[in-house]
């Protein structure tokens, strides 16, 4: 008899009857949607390219994004275009008058896939890859900062309600009615040099942390609002009341009952927010604040070419180098599009009955 019980335990239950959790069900739905799946693949690829692409390409071609090639620009300081092989001698022959002579015979050459970045003659491909990394750091970091500020305040305001909630809501509504970029501009005056000058090798370039703080603090209204609305609705639901009745503490209810319901919403928000923060970083670069022009981000790569809002550069056929703007532009559009499409896919997967 004992043997029978043991064998019974080994028998697999028939699959269709097994309950499927919301996450597994969501993943199954996401997997069935080819567009969402390819968006997920694209985002993964871009993140991997951003994180490791610069280092790998540097190792392959033997120079990094800061090395300046004397032969990458002609005498009019016009940089070479994409897919160009140039001479790269260790010591370019420059005479006492600063004139660059032809490269010595048999000097090593290098291949610039995206061309050179300007009169300084740096490898545009590595700069774009480094820029993607810096932009992703700003987008993701600012999203996390906004979440860290917005989640606790929003959850508390929505769950407890009351007078403070009403005042906070009115305040956020009023602030959000104004163009946020003007707040960013104004706050930038008071961003101390301590925050701005934080850096960690070439992994987190100088100025990135400043942008993260600036964008993160001022976009925290969005998760705050989102969490507040959901918490205010969920607070009256039956499972929260049940948790109250069995004597769960408020902290436990917030953490174990409320938070799991917020995660799908916050996932969707997070994916969109990373993209919008990357666009915000471009905006900061165009305003001439934030990361210094010499450090590559997708924003500075564009603003170096096009000038800032204060001092836009006019079109000049001699210095017209379209590849320097096309590559960052395509990168930013593809990145933000994939992030938005991924958010849409997650939303559809987690709320299958919502309108497509």
């Amino acid at each position, binding site marked *: 008899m004992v043997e029978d019980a043991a064998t019974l335990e080994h028998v697999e239950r028939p699959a269709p009857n097994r309950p499927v959790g919301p996450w597994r069900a969501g993943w199954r739905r996401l997997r069935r949607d080819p567009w969402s799946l390819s968006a997920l693949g694209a985002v993964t690829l871009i993140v991997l390219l951003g994180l490791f692409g610069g280092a790998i390409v540097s190792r392959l071609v033997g120079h990094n994004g800061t090395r300046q090639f004397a032969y990458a620009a002609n005498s009019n300081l016009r940089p070479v275009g994409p897919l160009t092989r140039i001479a790269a001698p260790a010591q370019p022959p420059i005479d006492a008058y600063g004139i660059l002579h032809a490269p010595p015979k048999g000097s090593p050459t290098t291949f610039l896939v995206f061309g050179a970045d300007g009169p300084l003659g740096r490898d545009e491909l590595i700069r774009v890859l480094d820029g993607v990394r810096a932009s992703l750091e700003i987008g993701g970091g600012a999203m996390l900062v906004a979440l860290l500020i917005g989640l606790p305040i929003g959850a508390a305001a929505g769950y407890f309600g009351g007078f403070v909630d009403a005042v906070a809501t009115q305040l956020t509504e*009023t602030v*959000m*009615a*104004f*163009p*946020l*970029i*003007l707040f*960013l*501009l*104004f706050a*930038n*005056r008071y961003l101390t040099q301590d925050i701005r000058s934080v850096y960690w090798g070439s992994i987190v370039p100088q100025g990135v942390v400043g942008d993260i703080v600036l*964008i993160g603090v*001022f*976009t925290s209204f*969005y998760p705050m609002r*989102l969490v507040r609305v959901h918490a205010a609705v969920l607070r009256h639901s039956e499972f929260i009341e049940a948790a109250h009745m069995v004597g769960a503490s408020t902290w436990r209810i917030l953490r174990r009952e409320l938070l799991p319901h917020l995660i799908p919403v916050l996932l*969707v*928000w997070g994916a*969109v*927010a990373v*993209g*919008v*923060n990357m*666009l*915000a970083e*471009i*905006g900061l670069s*165009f*305003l001439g*604040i934030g990361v210094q022009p010499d450090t590559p981000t997708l924003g500075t790569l*564009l603003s170096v070419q*096009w000038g800032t*809002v*204060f*001092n*836009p550069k*006019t*079109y000049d056929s001699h210095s017209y180098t379209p590849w320097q703007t096309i590559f960052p*532009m395509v990168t*930013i*559009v593809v990145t*933000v*599009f994939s992030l*938005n*499409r991924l958010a*849409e896919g997650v939303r559809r997967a987690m709320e299958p009955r919502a*309108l*497509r």
Partner: protein
Amino acid sequence: MRVARYLLVRSARGALTLLVMIAVVFALYFAIEKNPPIQNYVYGTLATKPQATQVHVVRKMLFLDDSKPVLFAHYVWRLAHGDIGHDRQIDSSGNVVDGGSVAFYVYPALRATLSILVGGAVLVALLSLPLGAISGSRLGSWADRLISFFALLLVCAHPMMLGLVLRSAGNGFGWPTTGYCPLLGHGAIRNIQTGLQTGTCGGPVDWAAHLALPWLTFALLFLALYTRMVRASVAETINEDFVRTARAKGASTARVLGRHVLPTAGLRVLTMVGMEVGTAIAVSIYIEAAYGIDGLGRHAVQTLGGEGPTLNLPDSLAIVVLITLIVVVGNLVVDFLYATLDPRVGIGRDPGRTKSLVGGVF
């Protein structure tokens, strides 16, 4: 009567917002300008210590010696009479005199920005309603997929990026792409970098021609949001009973969409417009920069974000007051239209507003 009371209450709230914003600007200004760099304002004091009289004159010019409540009350009182503010300057004999009204350059800037915003909004409505209707009435069709794809793609661009690309394209076709022409009367076109006059223009045709590309830029950026709104609204409404009734009567598809479905969708869009006024101003900053238009956004950036530790009080006040007025009046008009057009929404009740998940930053 009800409408009048509603308007009154909403105007009072708007006025309160305006007062709060003015107070905030005053507070920030006096917090910043505690110790102004005197040598920046008076010649010959870089090496030597400025004299007491010089310090006094500079502090007076910077509004620092005035009583703050009196200054605030005076400003609000003058504003109520339509005076947006006056600069102060030091004349040749070292006295503080009136430096002229800031209205001189602020109102032309406001005119340019409002032209961009209003024209752009009209273009958004003209494009998003038909596109959303096509998309929403045939969910899942190739037209729907195409429209949704491009709508999602365009929202991934930055306004300055889109503006400069369109400007290059316009240059290629010889379209006038820079500067602003006044709708009425004639104005000088100036090079925004050199300040030199490059020509004159004016009148409705020039106005529309010079603003066509800024409007297009504006519309393409906002199209995504509104097309999706209209699409969702149309897709929801199209299965309602009154639509089926209209179909049963034998109304054509165009009539069903135009008369029964789109007005409902239009109302939804209207509530969103009110919430997005701030975003529109932010977008306008970049559009003005891309097309070299001397607008309010440009002045806002230069006043609030310029280099250096100082802030110009009359300029900052004028900019903040005008932007607040655009936001407040925009919201008021939208709420009023919504409440009068949709009989189900009681006036005075907050219409269920929606705002995009993230945005307004750029």
